[in-house]
């Protein structure tokens, strides 16, 4: 009989994080593997080189961490409960990000893919709308503008 890998209960899991370091997408994906999870969805929001017709040089993100972390945790916890996820996690990066880097990663795992997709989109949409985190776009032609 094959021994299943150890999977910590959700209460032990680190649900959310805010970091200035590059996000280790591979590790976050590996942490989502679970014997009960038939589907894992990993969304990575990438810094692109254009916005509204303007060439973007880089982004800077800032957060009010004292509230951003609790808001993110509440959203992820709600998703876990609503979809009975076996795993969920969100990491948001802050500081200066270059083109092509990941600004946010949301990982969800469930027995079936439909729930993993739906929960992942819920977490992403909710965090964009509610977490006190902001991006400042710096343009190739000069100048910058806070995201809206």
């Amino acid at each position: 009989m094959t021994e299943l890998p150890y999977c910590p209960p959700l209460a032990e899991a680190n649900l959310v994080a805010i970091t200035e370091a590059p996000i280790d997408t591979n590790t976050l994906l590996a942490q989502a593997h679970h014997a009960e999870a038939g589907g894992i969805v990993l969304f990575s929001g990438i810094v692109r080189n254009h916005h509204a017709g303007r060439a973007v040089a880089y982004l800077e993100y800032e957060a009010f961490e004292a509230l951003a972390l609790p808001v993110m945790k509440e959203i992820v916890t709600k998703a876990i409960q609503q979809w009975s996820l076996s795993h969920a996690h969100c990491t948001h990066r802050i500081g200066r990000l270059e083109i092509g880097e990941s600004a946010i990663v949301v990982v969800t795992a469930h027995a079936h893919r439909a729930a993993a997709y739906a929960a992942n989109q819920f977490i992403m949409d909710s965090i964009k709308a509610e977490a006190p985190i902001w991006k400042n776009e710096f343009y190739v032609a000069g100048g910058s503008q806070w995201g809206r």
Partner: protein
Amino acid sequence: MIDVQVFAGLKDFFSPKFQVEPVHSVAQLKAALEAQQPACSTLLSLCKFAVNEQFVSLAHPLHAHDRVAILPPSSGG
């Protein structure tokens, strides 16, 4: 004094951290800041307020040594 911290686009109008004389409520603080920077009134009207790391309404009372954070609409992700 009351400690105020602002974020994102509000930093185009105010220092990131500053102090104000005590006022009775978040609404009074907002009005004082609008009077100080009229061009910022639209953005201030879109902001959420937190006192001592808790979201509050405009009616929330303020006391000396409170820490107020003024939070523009989120644009993370």
